[in-house]
Each structure stands twice: as structure tokens, then as C-alpha cells.
């Protein structure tokens, strides 16, 4: 990107964001400031509003209150700098098109009205497919893809846009261990180029390994910041209502938390930690 006005501005800046479906608040007074060049995991239980937060940042959902800035400006003015990897289930995979065509959709925004994707867009789409290891499948009908392949097609479609901020809704859902490693490497490569990646994540065991920032969310913001400061036993208990067992967070807190949990009795149903 040639001109980058306001370099100091955070990549994503959410202030006082409240989203409600009818009377029920789904997100309540959320603040979140994400500096450029970090890999942030949004973590929280089902119904915590993780997908809603992504959609609100993208401007797909109108909030009741609050505002979202992307590099200091409203998202409507920053469309060329932000992309989205939705959940696989959000589209009908029986749509009559193939892999390359879906990936090329990532170029539609910059092409503008009347222009069709041409050779240049094709090359870029193939390069993006290369990055996710799907180049051989570029002619494949999308209804014939496995879950992991669908996920990678969506990833390639976002990569083609070559933006500064990527929002991803559960990018590891339904992919095998090998693909997960490949996607993580890709995300870390993006970060090394100064891009910002915000991903909804479910596996607490890999948070520390994959991400450097974390947003703990349960309708309200529990905590947001670098993993080694924020990913604590205390915060996890607040996020998951204290029923989630231990073993993921900082050593110092773990001992105390373990003790308190064991005191509570057997209803914690064992620890998912190894």
C-alpha cells in the first residue's frame, strides 16, 4: 500500500459497541483496540457474540450504539483494506461454479463496475490457491470439495484481495491437523508482512502457540491484550463462567485456580488439559 495515512492508528478500533437482536443484547459495550501486525484470537463460549463482533466490525450488522474504525476511518471508507473469511456453512456449496471462479471473486471489489476479471486476476487467484495448496483443484466444482478444502478456498479468496486486515470466522473448523498447521503458517506469514489477522478460535490449547493477542468475550469484553498478559486462569473463568477446567493459562495462576476448582467438587467433569 503506497499511502498509509495515519500510520499510528490502530488496525481495528472498536468503541462502546452494543449489538442487540430485539431487546436481547448480543454484544454489550465492547471496547477493543488492535494494533497493526498482530494475530488476535477471539475466544468465548457459544453465544458469546464472536461472529456478531466480526460482522459488526465489517459493517454487516448495524450496531445499536458504538463505532468501529479501521486505521482511523469508518469501514465504509476502508473496504479495500479489510477482508473476511466467513464460516463455511454460510454459503450454498451447490452453487454452479468452480474453485478458481470463487477465488477470483476476491478481485471484484477493485475491478469496479463493468470490468470482468481477466488474465491478471486469474494469475493472482492461482497464486493465492498456491499459497493454500489448492492449485491443482482450481477447476474443481465447488460442490465436490471437502470441508477443509472449502475452508482453504475461502482463505484464498481473502488472500487475493491483498488487504491489511483479515477477519476470519473459525478458520480451523473441520480441517485436519496438517491443514491446520499450513493455515497457521500462512497466518503467521501474513503477520510477518505487517498484516493484522483477527480469528474466532475455539481450541484453548493452541491459543498460546498460534496467536499473540487474545480477546476474551462473553457478550461483554472480559479482557483483550497480548496472550501472555491476558490469557489467565482468572479471565478464562470469567469468560466461561468458572466451569471450564484449567491448564491453559499462566503457571502462576494455575495452581491457585486448580485448588479452587478442586474444592468445588466433581462437577467440573475433569480437565480437558493433557
Amino acid at each position, binding site marked *: 500500500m503506497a499511502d498509509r495515512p495515519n500510520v499510528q492508528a490502530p488496525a481495528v478500533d472498536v468503541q462502546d459497541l452494543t449489538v442487540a437482536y430485539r431487546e436481547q443484547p448480543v454484544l454489550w459495550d465492547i471496547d477493543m483496540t488492535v494494533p497493526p501486525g498482530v494475530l488476535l484470537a477471539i475466544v468465548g463460549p457459544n453465544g458469546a457474540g464472536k461472529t456478531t463482533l466480526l460482522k459488526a466490525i465489517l459493517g454487516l450488522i448495524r450496531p445499536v450504539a458504538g463505532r468501529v474504525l479501521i486505521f482511523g476511518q469508518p469501514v465504509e471508507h476502508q473496504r479495500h483494506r479489510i477482508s473476511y473469511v*466467513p464460516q463455511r456453512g454460510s454459503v450454498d456449496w451447490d452453487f454452479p461454479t468452480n474453485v478458481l471462479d470463487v477465488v477470483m471473486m476476491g478481485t471484484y471489489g477493485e475491478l469496479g463496475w463493468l470490468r470482468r476479471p481477466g488474465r491478471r486476476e486469474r494469475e493472482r487467484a492461482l497464486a493465492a490457491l498456491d499459497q493454500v495448496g489448492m492449485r491443482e483443484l482450481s477447476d474443481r466444482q465447488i460442490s465436490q470439495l471437502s470441508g477443509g478444502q472449502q475452508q482453504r478456498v475461502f482463505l484464498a*479468496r481473502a488472500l487475493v484481495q491483498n488487504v491489511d486486515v483479515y477477519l476470519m470466522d473459525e478458520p480451523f473448523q473441520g480441517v485436519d491437523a496438517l491443514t491446520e498447521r499450513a493455515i497457521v503458517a500462512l497466518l503467521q506469514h501474513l503477520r510477518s508482512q505487517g498484516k493484522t489477522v483477527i480469528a474466532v478460535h475455539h481450541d484453548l490449547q493452541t491459543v498460546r502457540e498460534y496467536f499473540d493477542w487474545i480477546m476474551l468475550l462473553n457478550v461483554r469484553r472480559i479482557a483483550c491484550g497480548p496472550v501472555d498478559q491476558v490469557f489467565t486462569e482468572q479471565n478464562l473463568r470469567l469468560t466461561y463462567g468458572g466451569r471450564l477446567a484449567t491448564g491453559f493459562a499462566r503457571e502462576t495462576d494455575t495452581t491457585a485456580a486448580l485448588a479452587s476448582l478442586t474444592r468445588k467438587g466433581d462437577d467440573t467433569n475433569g480437565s480437558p488439559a493433557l
Partner: protein
Amino acid sequence: MALPLFDLALDYTLRTVALGAMLLGLSSGVIGTYAVLRRQSLLGDAMSHAALPGIALAFLLTQSKEAPILLSGALAAGWLGALLVSAITRTTRVKLDSALGLILSVFFGFGLMLLTFIQQQAGASQAGLDRFLFGQAASLMQRDVAVMGGGTTIVLLTVLLYWKEFKLLAFDPDFARVLGLRVRFLESLLTSLLVLAIVVGLQTVGVVLMSAMVVAPAAAARQWTDRLGVMVVLGALFGILAGTSGALLSSLTPRLPTGPTIVLVVTGMVIVSLLLAPNRGLVWTWARARARAGQVQADTILHHLAALAEHHDSLEYGHPSAVLRTTGLSPQQVDHTLRVLESTGLVRRIDQDRWAITPAGLIRVRPPLHAAEIEKTGDSPAHRVANPANTAREGPR
């Protein structure tokens, strides 16, 4: 039929009818593709029914039966219906299907009421409006066809201009918005085109059955292709074919209403497509399932024969086919499968009804994992069983 009359008809009426039906099939086939892919088939049904009061009101206000005036009324009413459906779903808890049903019946009921009112007013000239209910291709005039041609041109040009936008909108509207496309505008544009395509067909097919022309050609086209471009073209072709043949058929047969005839023709196309289309067709699916079942039977029999051969430690020992019925297959299935396997050289007949697996068959069910290892030890499954030393030892049994 009197020949001179037929000639005359071919000259003017039939040509007009054929042209009108062609335009109707073309526009509804193209726009129907998007309606079907966006799962909005029922929107077409609601829009076409909603058009009826517009036609009646246009007549009441102007006392004119000119197609442009009546169809403008239809356009306005259809569009208003679409607007209301979208407003209802956005502002209330009523779901889309209920909103569609609501608008459809309210508008259609109001239209029927107005129609009855017009007919009671008498005056022979007013009687013609009920042709909009079930369609009457024979009543098409050249001027009507010109209006239809205008509507069709708008539909086709817009789809061409917004090709990639409409494609993305149909596949992933959220992503379209993330890219900065004006999704709300594109959606209303597509809905407007749907209303326009419906209005183009109203005179020929009628409000009651018009939605079939939106849904059926596209549904049939989807069966034959996996590419959007081909699907749009095929939808147009199916629409043209159904529209023209149905309209001509009804024009040549006295008192055969056009709309139902066209719908029957297009339904035939859908049935053929559902059954016969490669890959997606039912016959195709059925044949594949059958082939797979045959493969499973063959595998089962081969595994049993292999186990028997290993148990007897001999490839020469014949086993009666009755033994293989313990697999749960019927005698016919066993006999049939054995014959198929024999023809591919995986089993062989020892005598009358005694069968054995061949070395090739054994390798098929017990594939050697490491070729190198076998060479080293000389221990392939076939080798192991067929080893002369082994058979000699077991021979006397």
C-alpha cells in the same frame, strides 16, 4: 382445419404469438436462474399474483386496454408487493415465507375483487381483462410484443452489465458487501428485473401460473450444468422452447388456455431433466448406486473365497456357491456376481458348481503392502497359498 385460415394465421397471429412466447421464455428463463439460485422462487409467485390488482386499477383509472398501460399497472403493483414483502421481513418477526403468502393472497384477492367489479360494470369492451388470469397467447398484438421486447432487452442488458455483481450476490451476499458492492441496490435491481420479466409474460401465461415460468426452466437448466453462464443460457433456451411450443399448441387448439399448456410443457422438461441429466439426474444416480452395490457384492464374495482358500490353504479346492449365501446375498446375486468375477478372471469354476479364487483375485483382496518386502521374502498372499509345498502338505486331506 381450413387451409386458407391456417395460412392466414401463420402469417400474422401465429408469428406474433410465437415471438411473444419466445420473449417471455427468454426473460423469465434468464432471471429465473437468479431467483432459483438465491432461493427466491416463491418471490416470483407472489410478484405475479400481486400484479393483478395493478392491471385492474390501471384499467379502472384509464378505461384503456392498451398493453403498455395495463402492464405499467402490473409493474407498479408487483413492485409494491416486493417492497412490502421486504418491509415486512425487515421490520417484523414475520418470516419470508409467511410474508410472501400474505402479500400473494391479499393482492390476488383484491385483484379478483376489482376484476369482478369491472365485469359487473358491463360494456362488452371491458370483458377482456380475465385473460390475464390464465393467459391468452392468441390475443397478443404486434404492439404487445413490442412492449415485451423492450422489457426483455432491459432484462438481458442489465444481467450482462451486472454479470459478476449478480453472481457474487447470488453466491455470497455478505462477502459482496465486504468488498464494498452496493448489495441493497443490487438486490432491489434484481427484484425489479424479476417483476419486469413477470410482467413480460403476464399476457401469455397469466398471473396464476407465471411463477412456473420463472422456476421451471432454471430448475431444469441446473440439472445439466455446473457453470452459471451455461445455466443462464440453458434456462433461456428451455424457457423459449416451452413458451413457443406451448403458445403455438394452445393457439392452434380452440379453447386451450395458453398458461396451463406452457406450464405442462415446461413441467415435462423439468421431469426429463430431473431423471436423465448426467451426474445430477436420478437415473444416473440410480445407475451409480447399482454399480456400487455390485462392487460391494463382488468384494464380499471375493473376501469369502479368499478366506476359504486360506482356510484350506489351497487355490485348487472348489467351494460350492451355496457356501457363499452365508454372506446374506440371494442365490441369484451370488450366481450373477460369480459369473461377473469369472469373466474378469478373479474367480474360476473348478467344476459344475464349485468355485475358487484365482491368484489375481487374491491379490485384489489381500494387496501386498510393500512390494520390496515380498520380493525379499517371496511372501505375497497368492504365493503363500499357492505355494506347492503347502498344497503338497495339505494335499491328501
